[in-house]
Protein backbone atom coordinates (compact mmCIF):
# COMPACT_ATOMS: atom_id res chain seq x y z
CA UNK A 1 0.00 0.00 0.00
CA UNK A 2 1.27 3.45 -0.76
CA UNK A 3 2.29 6.33 1.47
CA UNK A 4 -0.96 8.25 1.17
CA UNK A 5 -3.12 5.31 2.23
CA UNK A 6 -0.89 4.63 5.22
CA UNK A 7 -1.03 8.28 6.24
CA UNK A 8 -4.81 8.32 5.94
CA UNK A 9 -5.20 5.11 7.92
CA UNK A 10 -2.91 6.31 10.70
CA UNK A 11 -4.88 9.57 10.79
CA UNK A 12 -8.16 7.72 11.11
CA UNK A 13 -6.83 5.44 13.82
CA UNK A 14 -5.56 8.52 15.64
CA UNK A 15 -9.05 10.02 15.62
CA UNK A 16 -10.55 6.81 16.99
CA UNK A 17 -7.86 6.74 19.70
CA UNK A 18 -8.80 10.26 20.74
CA UNK A 19 -12.44 9.22 20.92
CA UNK A 20 -11.66 6.26 23.15
CA UNK A 21 -9.60 8.56 25.39
CA UNK A 22 -12.59 10.92 25.73
CA UNK A 23 -14.70 7.93 26.71
CA UNK A 24 -12.20 6.99 29.42
CA UNK A 25 -12.21 10.56 30.76
CA UNK A 26 -15.98 10.73 30.82
CA UNK A 27 -16.58 7.19 32.07
CA UNK A 28 -18.52 6.99 35.26
CA UNK A 29 -18.19 3.26 35.80
CA UNK A 30 -14.93 1.34 35.98
CA UNK A 31 -16.21 -1.31 33.54
CA UNK A 32 -16.65 1.27 30.81
CA UNK A 33 -13.16 2.64 31.32
CA UNK A 34 -11.68 -0.86 31.11
CA UNK A 35 -13.51 -1.68 27.90
CA UNK A 36 -12.47 1.65 26.40
CA UNK A 37 -8.80 1.04 27.14
CA UNK A 38 -9.06 -2.47 25.75
CA UNK A 39 -10.49 -1.05 22.53
CA UNK A 40 -7.70 1.51 22.52
CA UNK A 41 -5.03 -1.18 22.77
CA UNK A 42 -6.73 -3.07 19.96
CA UNK A 43 -6.49 0.02 17.79
CA UNK A 44 -2.80 0.37 18.65
CA UNK A 45 -2.27 -3.21 17.57
CA UNK A 46 -4.06 -2.49 14.30
CA UNK A 47 -1.92 0.59 13.74
CA UNK A 48 1.23 -1.41 14.40
CA UNK A 49 0.00 -4.00 11.92
CA UNK A 50 -0.65 -1.38 9.27
CA UNK A 51 2.81 0.10 9.71
CA UNK A 52 4.32 -3.38 9.65
CA UNK A 53 2.68 -4.07 6.31
CA UNK A 54 3.85 -0.74 4.95
CA UNK A 55 7.46 -0.90 6.07
CA UNK A 56 7.96 -4.67 6.21
CA UNK A 57 9.71 -4.32 9.58
CA UNK A 58 9.30 -7.66 11.43
CA UNK A 59 9.67 -5.96 14.83
CA UNK A 60 6.41 -4.17 14.26
CA UNK A 61 4.60 -7.48 13.78
CA UNK A 62 5.92 -8.62 17.14
CA UNK A 63 4.81 -5.39 18.76
CA UNK A 64 1.39 -5.73 17.23
CA UNK A 65 1.04 -9.26 18.49
CA UNK A 66 2.25 -8.49 21.99
CA UNK A 67 0.00 -5.41 22.30
CA UNK A 68 -2.95 -7.39 21.08
CA UNK A 69 -2.45 -10.28 23.47
CA UNK A 70 -1.18 -8.50 26.55
CA UNK A 71 -2.81 -5.10 26.53
CA UNK A 72 -6.02 -5.81 24.69
CA UNK A 73 -6.86 -9.13 26.26
CA UNK A 74 -4.86 -10.22 29.30
CA UNK A 75 -4.52 -7.02 31.30
CA UNK A 76 -8.14 -5.91 30.88
CA UNK A 77 -9.18 -9.42 31.93
CA UNK A 78 -7.03 -9.11 35.06
CA UNK A 79 -8.57 -5.75 35.90
CA UNK A 80 -12.02 -7.15 35.25
CA UNK A 81 -11.37 -10.00 37.68
CA UNK A 82 -10.17 -7.54 40.31
CA UNK A 83 -13.34 -5.51 39.93
CA UNK A 84 -15.47 -8.63 40.27
CA UNK A 85 -13.56 -9.79 43.34
CA UNK A 86 -13.75 -6.41 45.00
CA UNK A 87 -17.49 -6.31 44.43
CA UNK A 88 -17.71 -2.81 45.75
CA UNK A 89 -19.37 0.31 44.21
CA UNK A 90 -18.12 0.36 40.70
CA UNK A 91 -18.59 4.04 40.07
CA UNK A 92 -15.57 6.18 39.50
CA UNK A 93 -15.27 9.12 41.88
CA UNK A 94 -13.32 12.02 40.51
CA UNK A 95 -11.34 14.47 42.59
CA UNK A 96 -12.44 17.38 40.40
CA UNK A 97 -15.82 17.46 38.67
CA UNK A 98 -16.12 15.76 35.31
CA UNK A 99 -16.77 18.98 33.47
CA UNK A 100 -13.54 20.50 34.77
CA UNK A 101 -11.68 17.37 33.71
CA UNK A 102 -13.13 17.64 30.24
CA UNK A 103 -12.25 21.33 30.08
CA UNK A 104 -8.63 20.55 31.02
CA UNK A 105 -8.66 17.78 28.43
CA UNK A 106 -9.73 20.27 25.76
CA UNK A 107 -6.86 22.51 26.77
CA UNK A 108 -4.41 19.61 26.59
CA UNK A 109 -5.57 18.61 23.11
CA UNK A 110 -5.26 22.16 21.78
CA UNK A 111 -1.87 22.61 23.45
CA UNK A 112 -0.47 19.41 22.02
CA UNK A 113 -1.60 20.42 18.55
CA UNK A 114 0.13 23.74 18.99
CA UNK A 115 3.28 22.09 20.29
CA UNK A 116 3.57 19.79 17.35
CA UNK A 117 2.78 22.57 14.89
CA UNK A 118 5.70 24.58 16.22
CA UNK A 119 8.11 21.72 15.65
CA UNK A 120 8.35 22.75 12.03
CA UNK A 121 10.61 20.58 9.91
CA UNK A 122 10.30 17.60 12.19
CA UNK A 123 6.55 17.80 11.69
CA UNK A 124 6.78 17.19 7.96
CA UNK A 125 8.49 13.88 8.39
CA UNK A 126 5.79 12.49 10.61
CA UNK A 127 2.64 10.84 9.45
CA UNK A 128 0.01 13.55 9.58
CA UNK A 129 -1.81 13.95 12.86
CA UNK A 130 -0.07 11.11 14.66
CA UNK A 131 2.35 13.19 16.73
CA UNK A 132 -0.18 15.55 18.30
CA UNK A 133 -2.61 12.69 18.91
CA UNK A 134 0.14 10.67 20.57
CA UNK A 135 1.18 13.55 22.82
CA UNK A 136 -2.46 14.14 23.74
CA UNK A 137 -2.92 10.51 24.66
CA UNK A 138 0.09 10.54 26.96
CA UNK A 139 -0.95 13.71 28.72
CA UNK A 140 -4.59 12.71 28.97
CA UNK A 141 -3.60 9.39 30.49
CA UNK A 142 -1.66 11.27 33.14
CA UNK A 143 -4.72 13.49 33.64
CA UNK A 144 -6.84 10.41 34.31
CA UNK A 145 -4.28 9.25 36.86
CA UNK A 146 -4.26 12.64 38.52
CA UNK A 147 -7.98 13.12 38.75
CA UNK A 148 -9.38 9.79 39.90
CA UNK A 149 -9.48 8.29 43.32
CA UNK A 150 -9.87 4.63 42.58
CA UNK A 151 -6.67 2.67 42.00
CA UNK A 152 -8.23 0.74 39.13
CA UNK A 153 -9.01 3.82 37.10
CA UNK A 154 -5.49 5.06 37.72
CA UNK A 155 -4.22 1.85 36.17
CA UNK A 156 -6.45 2.46 33.20
CA UNK A 157 -4.88 5.89 32.90
CA UNK A 158 -1.43 4.33 32.99
CA UNK A 159 -2.37 1.92 30.20
CA UNK A 160 -3.72 4.76 28.13
CA UNK A 161 -0.47 6.70 28.61
CA UNK A 162 1.37 3.59 27.50
CA UNK A 163 -0.69 3.43 24.37
CA UNK A 164 0.13 7.05 23.72
CA UNK A 165 3.86 6.40 24.06
CA UNK A 166 3.60 3.48 21.66
CA UNK A 167 1.64 5.44 19.13
CA UNK A 168 4.03 8.38 19.21
CA UNK A 169 7.05 6.14 18.89
CA UNK A 170 5.56 4.16 16.04
CA UNK A 171 4.47 7.22 14.17
CA UNK A 172 7.73 9.12 14.65
CA UNK A 173 10.26 6.43 13.99
CA UNK A 174 8.16 3.77 12.29
CA UNK A 175 8.87 1.34 15.09
CA UNK A 176 10.92 1.17 18.26
CA UNK A 177 13.81 -1.17 18.92
CA UNK A 178 12.25 -4.41 20.03
CA UNK A 179 14.13 -4.59 23.31
CA UNK A 180 12.66 -1.29 24.49
CA UNK A 181 9.21 -2.43 23.55
CA UNK A 182 9.58 -5.67 25.53
CA UNK A 183 10.96 -3.77 28.48
CA UNK A 184 8.05 -1.37 28.51
CA UNK A 185 5.52 -4.17 28.30
CA UNK A 186 7.18 -5.98 31.18
CA UNK A 187 7.03 -2.79 33.25
CA UNK A 188 3.36 -2.48 32.59
CA UNK A 189 2.67 -6.10 33.49
CA UNK A 190 4.63 -5.71 36.70
CA UNK A 191 2.75 -2.55 37.61
CA UNK A 192 -0.58 -4.25 36.98
CA UNK A 193 0.36 -7.26 39.11
CA UNK A 194 1.61 -5.11 41.98
CA UNK A 195 -1.52 -3.04 41.86
CA UNK A 196 -3.78 -6.08 41.75
CA UNK A 197 -2.06 -7.63 44.75
CA UNK A 198 -2.03 -4.36 46.66
CA UNK A 199 -5.68 -3.72 45.99
CA UNK A 200 -6.77 -7.22 46.92
CA UNK A 201 -4.63 -7.38 50.05
CA UNK A 202 -5.58 -3.91 51.15
CA UNK A 203 -9.21 -4.71 50.40
CA UNK A 204 -9.22 -7.56 52.83
CA UNK A 205 -8.54 -5.09 55.61
CA UNK A 206 -9.65 -1.63 54.50
CA UNK A 207 -11.42 -0.12 51.50
CA UNK A 208 -9.32 0.19 48.36
CA UNK A 209 -9.26 3.88 47.81
CA UNK A 210 -5.99 5.54 47.08
CA UNK A 211 -7.18 8.52 49.00
CA UNK A 212 -7.15 6.45 52.14
CA UNK A 213 -3.53 5.48 51.68
CA UNK A 214 -2.36 8.86 52.75
CA UNK A 215 -3.49 7.99 56.24
CA UNK A 216 -0.44 5.76 56.39
CA UNK A 217 1.79 8.70 57.19
CA UNK A 218 4.34 8.25 59.86
Amino acid at each position, binding site marked *: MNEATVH*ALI*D*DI*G*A*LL*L*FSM*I*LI*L*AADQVYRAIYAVAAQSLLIAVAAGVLAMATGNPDLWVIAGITLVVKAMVLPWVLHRVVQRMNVRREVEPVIP*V*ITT*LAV*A*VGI*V*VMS*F*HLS*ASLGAVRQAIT*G*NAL*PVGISLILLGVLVMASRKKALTQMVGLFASENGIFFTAMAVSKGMPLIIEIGVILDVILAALVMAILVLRVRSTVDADIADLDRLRG
Partner: protein
Amino acid sequence: MTGERPFALVLLEMSFLMLLGPLVTGIIQKIKARLQLRQGAGVLQPYRDLAKLFRKGTVQADTTSGLFRSIPVFVLAATVAAGALVPVFRGGPPAVPLGDALLLLGLLALARFLTAVGALDAGGAFGGMGASREMTVAPLVEPVLMMVVFSTAVAAGTTELGALAAHRSASWLLAWRAADFLGFAAMLVLLPAETGRIPVDNPDTHLELTMLHEGMLLEHSGPGLGCMLLASHTRQVVTLGFVAALFLPASPMAAGSALGFLIGAAAFIAKILVLALYLALVESSYAKLRFFRIPQYLAVGFVCALSALALRIL
Protein backbone atom coordinates in the same frame (compact mmCIF):
# COMPACT_ATOMS: atom_id res chain seq x y z
CA MET B 1 -23.97 28.63 -7.15
CA THR B 2 -26.96 27.13 -8.85
CA GLY B 3 -27.54 23.47 -8.78
CA GLU B 4 -29.64 20.96 -10.51
CA ARG B 5 -32.34 20.18 -8.01
CA PRO B 6 -35.44 21.92 -9.33
CA PHE B 7 -37.80 23.65 -6.89
CA ALA B 8 -40.54 21.12 -7.57
CA LEU B 9 -38.18 18.38 -6.41
CA VAL B 10 -37.40 20.34 -3.24
CA LEU B 11 -41.11 20.62 -2.46
CA LEU B 12 -41.55 16.93 -3.18
CA GLU B 13 -38.71 16.11 -0.80
CA MET B 14 -40.28 18.30 1.87
CA SER B 15 -43.62 16.51 1.62
CA PHE B 16 -41.87 13.14 1.55
CA LEU B 17 -40.12 13.96 4.80
CA MET B 18 -43.33 15.06 6.46
CA LEU B 19 -45.05 11.83 5.45
CA LEU B 20 -42.07 9.70 6.45
CA GLY B 21 -41.79 11.17 9.94
CA PRO B 22 -44.44 9.14 11.75
CA LEU B 23 -43.20 5.95 10.08
CA VAL B 24 -39.72 6.48 11.50
CA THR B 25 -41.19 7.00 14.97
CA GLY B 26 -43.22 3.83 14.52
CA ILE B 27 -40.13 1.88 13.50
CA ILE B 28 -38.18 3.08 16.51
CA GLN B 29 -41.05 2.11 18.82
CA LYS B 30 -41.27 -1.31 17.19
CA ILE B 31 -37.54 -1.96 17.58
CA LYS B 32 -37.68 -0.89 21.20
CA ALA B 33 -40.63 -3.19 21.82
CA ARG B 34 -38.88 -6.14 20.23
CA LEU B 35 -35.77 -5.51 22.30
CA GLN B 36 -37.96 -5.56 25.37
CA LEU B 37 -39.41 -8.90 24.20
CA ARG B 38 -42.82 -7.38 23.54
CA GLN B 39 -44.89 -7.38 20.37
CA GLY B 40 -45.40 -3.65 20.38
CA ALA B 41 -47.88 -1.69 18.29
CA GLY B 42 -47.57 -1.75 14.51
CA VAL B 43 -45.18 0.57 12.70
CA LEU B 44 -48.15 2.49 11.29
CA GLN B 45 -49.58 3.25 14.72
CA PRO B 46 -48.45 6.93 14.75
CA TYR B 47 -50.50 7.49 11.58
CA ARG B 48 -53.57 6.05 13.26
CA ASP B 49 -52.96 8.24 16.31
CA LEU B 50 -52.72 11.34 14.16
CA ALA B 51 -55.88 10.45 12.26
CA LYS B 52 -57.71 9.97 15.55
CA LEU B 53 -56.54 13.35 16.84
CA PHE B 54 -57.59 15.20 13.72
CA ARG B 55 -61.10 13.84 14.10
CA LYS B 56 -61.49 15.07 17.68
CA GLY B 57 -62.65 18.39 19.06
CA THR B 58 -60.50 20.84 20.94
CA VAL B 59 -60.55 21.68 24.64
CA GLN B 60 -58.65 24.81 25.50
CA ALA B 61 -57.54 26.26 28.82
CA ASP B 62 -59.50 29.34 29.79
CA THR B 63 -56.51 31.52 30.60
CA THR B 64 -54.92 31.31 27.17
CA SER B 65 -54.63 34.33 24.96
CA GLY B 66 -55.41 34.35 21.26
CA LEU B 67 -51.83 33.21 20.66
CA PHE B 68 -52.41 29.64 21.82
CA ARG B 69 -54.65 28.62 18.94
CA SER B 70 -52.08 29.59 16.35
CA ILE B 71 -49.02 28.00 17.98
CA PRO B 72 -49.54 24.53 16.42
CA VAL B 73 -49.94 26.15 13.00
CA PHE B 74 -46.68 28.04 13.13
CA VAL B 75 -44.73 25.21 14.77
CA LEU B 76 -45.81 22.78 12.06
CA ALA B 77 -45.08 25.31 9.31
CA ALA B 78 -41.57 26.03 10.63
CA THR B 79 -40.67 22.35 11.06
CA VAL B 80 -41.94 21.33 7.63
CA ALA B 81 -40.12 24.30 6.07
CA ALA B 82 -36.93 23.01 7.69
CA GLY B 83 -37.53 19.78 5.81
CA ALA B 84 -37.23 21.64 2.52
CA LEU B 85 -33.55 22.24 3.28
CA VAL B 86 -32.58 18.57 3.61
CA PRO B 87 -31.36 16.81 0.44
CA VAL B 88 -33.25 13.55 0.11
CA PHE B 89 -33.05 11.93 -3.29
CA ARG B 90 -29.67 13.22 -4.33
CA GLY B 91 -27.04 15.67 -3.27
CA GLY B 92 -26.20 18.97 -4.86
CA PRO B 93 -27.53 22.46 -4.22
CA PRO B 94 -31.07 23.38 -5.31
CA ALA B 95 -31.79 25.39 -8.41
CA VAL B 96 -33.71 28.06 -6.51
CA PRO B 97 -31.56 28.95 -3.50
CA LEU B 98 -33.36 28.49 -0.22
CA GLY B 99 -31.04 28.19 2.74
CA ASP B 100 -28.37 26.21 4.49
CA ALA B 101 -27.69 24.25 7.65
CA LEU B 102 -27.85 27.42 9.76
CA LEU B 103 -31.32 28.21 8.46
CA LEU B 104 -32.41 24.66 9.29
CA LEU B 105 -31.17 25.03 12.85
CA GLY B 106 -32.83 28.45 13.03
CA LEU B 107 -36.20 27.09 11.88
CA LEU B 108 -36.06 24.27 14.41
CA ALA B 109 -35.15 26.84 17.07
CA LEU B 110 -38.17 28.94 16.03
CA ALA B 111 -40.42 25.90 16.43
CA ARG B 112 -38.98 25.27 19.87
CA PHE B 113 -39.38 28.92 20.91
CA LEU B 114 -43.03 28.99 19.86
CA THR B 115 -43.73 25.66 21.60
CA ALA B 116 -42.23 26.99 24.83
CA VAL B 117 -44.23 30.23 24.59
CA GLY B 118 -47.39 28.19 24.02
CA ALA B 119 -46.57 26.10 27.07
CA LEU B 120 -46.36 29.19 29.24
CA ASP B 121 -49.57 30.56 27.77
CA ALA B 122 -51.78 27.96 29.35
CA GLY B 123 -50.36 28.71 32.76
CA GLY B 124 -49.84 26.03 35.33
CA ALA B 125 -46.67 24.36 36.44
CA PHE B 126 -46.40 21.55 33.86
CA GLY B 127 -45.96 23.85 30.92
CA GLY B 128 -43.64 26.10 32.86
CA MET B 129 -41.38 23.25 33.93
CA GLY B 130 -41.29 21.68 30.48
CA ALA B 131 -40.52 25.01 28.85
CA SER B 132 -37.86 25.88 31.41
CA ARG B 133 -36.05 22.56 31.03
CA GLU B 134 -36.30 22.48 27.27
CA MET B 135 -34.90 26.00 27.05
CA THR B 136 -32.05 24.97 29.35
CA VAL B 137 -30.96 22.02 27.24
CA ALA B 138 -31.34 23.84 23.91
CA PRO B 139 -28.61 26.50 24.40
CA LEU B 140 -26.18 23.79 25.51
CA VAL B 141 -26.77 21.79 22.35
CA GLU B 142 -26.40 24.72 19.96
CA PRO B 143 -22.63 25.37 20.32
CA VAL B 144 -21.81 21.71 19.77
CA LEU B 145 -24.05 21.57 16.71
CA MET B 146 -22.43 24.70 15.36
CA MET B 147 -18.96 23.22 15.80
CA VAL B 148 -19.99 19.99 14.08
CA VAL B 149 -21.44 21.97 11.16
CA PHE B 150 -18.28 24.04 10.99
CA SER B 151 -16.02 20.99 11.06
CA THR B 152 -17.69 19.68 7.93
CA ALA B 153 -18.27 23.07 6.34
CA VAL B 154 -14.68 24.26 6.67
CA ALA B 155 -13.55 21.46 4.39
CA ALA B 156 -16.27 22.13 1.83
CA GLY B 157 -16.28 25.93 2.03
CA THR B 158 -20.06 26.15 2.27
CA THR B 159 -22.80 25.43 4.77
CA GLU B 160 -25.46 24.50 2.23
CA LEU B 161 -26.67 21.00 2.96
CA GLY B 162 -27.02 19.80 -0.61
CA ALA B 163 -23.49 20.91 -1.42
CA LEU B 164 -22.19 19.30 1.77
CA ALA B 165 -23.89 16.04 0.86
CA ALA B 166 -22.39 16.14 -2.62
CA HIS B 167 -19.01 16.96 -1.12
CA ARG B 168 -19.27 13.95 1.16
CA SER B 169 -18.58 12.05 -2.05
CA ALA B 170 -20.80 10.38 -4.52
CA SER B 171 -19.57 6.93 -3.81
CA TRP B 172 -20.98 4.11 -1.80
CA LEU B 173 -18.00 4.01 0.56
CA LEU B 174 -17.70 5.98 3.70
CA ALA B 175 -15.13 8.57 2.61
CA TRP B 176 -14.29 9.95 6.01
CA ARG B 177 -11.17 11.72 7.12
CA ALA B 178 -9.88 11.64 10.65
CA ALA B 179 -11.90 14.63 11.80
CA ASP B 180 -15.14 13.10 10.56
CA PHE B 181 -14.95 10.19 13.00
CA LEU B 182 -14.96 12.57 15.92
CA GLY B 183 -17.55 14.85 14.32
CA PHE B 184 -19.86 11.90 13.78
CA ALA B 185 -19.28 10.75 17.35
CA ALA B 186 -20.24 14.22 18.60
CA MET B 187 -23.35 14.15 16.41
CA LEU B 188 -24.36 10.76 17.78
CA VAL B 189 -24.01 12.14 21.30
CA LEU B 190 -26.28 15.03 20.33
CA LEU B 191 -28.94 13.00 18.52
CA PRO B 192 -30.87 11.93 21.61
CA ALA B 193 -30.84 15.54 22.84
CA GLU B 194 -32.12 16.91 19.52
CA THR B 195 -34.82 14.26 19.06
CA GLY B 196 -35.90 14.21 22.69
CA ARG B 197 -35.04 10.59 23.48
CA ILE B 198 -33.37 8.74 26.32
CA PRO B 199 -30.87 9.52 27.86
CA VAL B 200 -31.91 13.17 27.66
CA ASP B 201 -35.68 13.03 27.64
CA ASN B 202 -38.29 10.30 27.79
CA PRO B 203 -40.83 10.48 24.96
CA ASP B 204 -43.03 7.74 26.37
CA THR B 205 -44.04 9.08 29.78
CA HIS B 206 -46.25 11.97 30.73
CA LEU B 207 -44.92 12.77 34.17
CA GLU B 208 -43.65 16.30 34.51
CA LEU B 209 -40.41 15.38 36.17
CA THR B 210 -39.25 12.99 33.48
CA MET B 211 -40.16 14.85 30.34
CA LEU B 212 -39.01 17.95 28.57
CA HIS B 213 -40.81 17.94 25.28
CA GLU B 214 -44.01 16.25 26.36
CA GLY B 215 -44.52 18.74 29.17
CA MET B 216 -44.91 21.54 26.67
CA LEU B 217 -47.62 19.68 24.74
CA LEU B 218 -49.84 18.94 27.70
CA GLU B 219 -52.48 21.62 27.16
CA HIS B 220 -52.89 21.05 23.42
CA SER B 221 -55.73 18.81 22.30
CA GLY B 222 -57.50 17.58 19.19
CA PRO B 223 -56.22 18.75 15.82
CA GLY B 224 -53.85 21.22 17.53
CA LEU B 225 -52.17 18.35 19.33
CA GLY B 226 -52.15 16.44 16.06
CA CYS B 227 -50.23 19.29 14.44
CA MET B 228 -47.74 19.42 17.33
CA LEU B 229 -47.16 15.66 17.21
CA LEU B 230 -46.74 15.71 13.45
CA ALA B 231 -44.25 18.55 13.95
CA SER B 232 -42.23 16.49 16.45
CA HIS B 233 -42.18 13.47 14.08
CA THR B 234 -41.07 15.73 11.25
CA ARG B 235 -38.45 17.34 13.47
CA GLN B 236 -37.02 13.91 14.24
CA VAL B 237 -36.76 12.84 10.62
CA VAL B 238 -35.37 16.24 9.59
CA THR B 239 -32.64 15.91 12.24
CA LEU B 240 -31.81 12.40 11.03
CA GLY B 241 -31.73 13.64 7.45
CA PHE B 242 -29.45 16.47 8.54
CA VAL B 243 -26.99 14.00 10.08
CA ALA B 244 -27.21 11.83 6.98
CA ALA B 245 -26.46 14.78 4.72
CA LEU B 246 -23.44 15.80 6.76
CA PHE B 247 -21.85 12.41 7.30
CA LEU B 248 -23.29 9.57 5.22
CA PRO B 249 -22.48 9.16 1.53
CA ALA B 250 -24.85 10.53 -1.03
CA SER B 251 -26.44 8.49 -3.74
CA PRO B 252 -24.14 8.09 -6.71
CA MET B 253 -26.67 7.65 -9.49
CA ALA B 254 -26.93 10.30 -12.14
CA ALA B 255 -29.72 12.83 -12.04
CA GLY B 256 -32.82 12.73 -14.13
CA SER B 257 -33.45 9.04 -14.50
CA ALA B 258 -36.39 7.41 -12.79
CA LEU B 259 -34.16 4.59 -11.63
CA GLY B 260 -31.76 7.10 -10.07
CA PHE B 261 -34.72 8.66 -8.30
CA LEU B 262 -35.81 5.37 -6.79
CA ILE B 263 -32.29 4.41 -5.80
CA GLY B 264 -31.86 7.81 -4.16
CA ALA B 265 -35.06 7.35 -2.18
CA ALA B 266 -34.03 3.86 -1.12
CA ALA B 267 -30.57 5.05 -0.10
CA PHE B 268 -32.06 7.85 1.97
CA ILE B 269 -34.47 5.50 3.72
CA ALA B 270 -31.60 3.14 4.43
CA LYS B 271 -29.54 5.94 6.01
CA ILE B 272 -32.49 7.05 8.13
CA LEU B 273 -33.12 3.47 9.23
CA VAL B 274 -29.50 3.05 10.34
CA LEU B 275 -29.74 6.18 12.50
CA ALA B 276 -33.19 5.13 13.76
CA LEU B 277 -31.73 1.78 14.79
CA TYR B 278 -28.99 3.62 16.68
CA LEU B 279 -31.59 5.69 18.52
CA ALA B 280 -33.64 2.62 19.41
CA LEU B 281 -30.59 0.79 20.71
CA VAL B 282 -29.49 3.75 22.82
CA GLU B 283 -33.00 4.11 24.24
CA SER B 284 -33.12 0.46 25.19
CA SER B 285 -29.64 0.29 26.69
CA TYR B 286 -29.45 3.34 28.89
CA ALA B 287 -31.52 4.96 31.60
CA LYS B 288 -32.61 8.56 31.48
CA LEU B 289 -30.04 10.89 32.97
CA ARG B 290 -30.83 13.05 35.94
CA PHE B 291 -31.53 16.49 34.53
CA PHE B 292 -28.46 18.20 35.96
CA ARG B 293 -26.17 15.52 34.55
CA ILE B 294 -27.22 16.41 31.02
CA PRO B 295 -24.56 19.18 30.76
CA GLN B 296 -21.89 16.57 31.55
CA TYR B 297 -23.28 14.32 28.86
CA LEU B 298 -23.28 17.15 26.34
CA ALA B 299 -19.74 18.11 27.39
CA VAL B 300 -18.52 14.79 25.94
CA GLY B 301 -20.02 15.84 22.63
CA PHE B 302 -18.38 19.24 22.98
CA VAL B 303 -14.93 17.73 23.51
CA CYS B 304 -15.42 15.40 20.53
CA ALA B 305 -16.50 18.29 18.31
CA LEU B 306 -13.62 20.48 19.43
CA SER B 307 -11.12 17.69 18.81
CA ALA B 308 -12.66 17.19 15.37
CA LEU B 309 -12.09 20.86 14.64
CA ALA B 310 -8.56 20.73 16.01
CA LEU B 311 -7.83 17.82 13.69
CA ARG B 312 -9.31 19.72 10.81
CA ILE B 313 -7.80 23.14 11.32
CA LEU B 314 -4.57 22.73 13.20
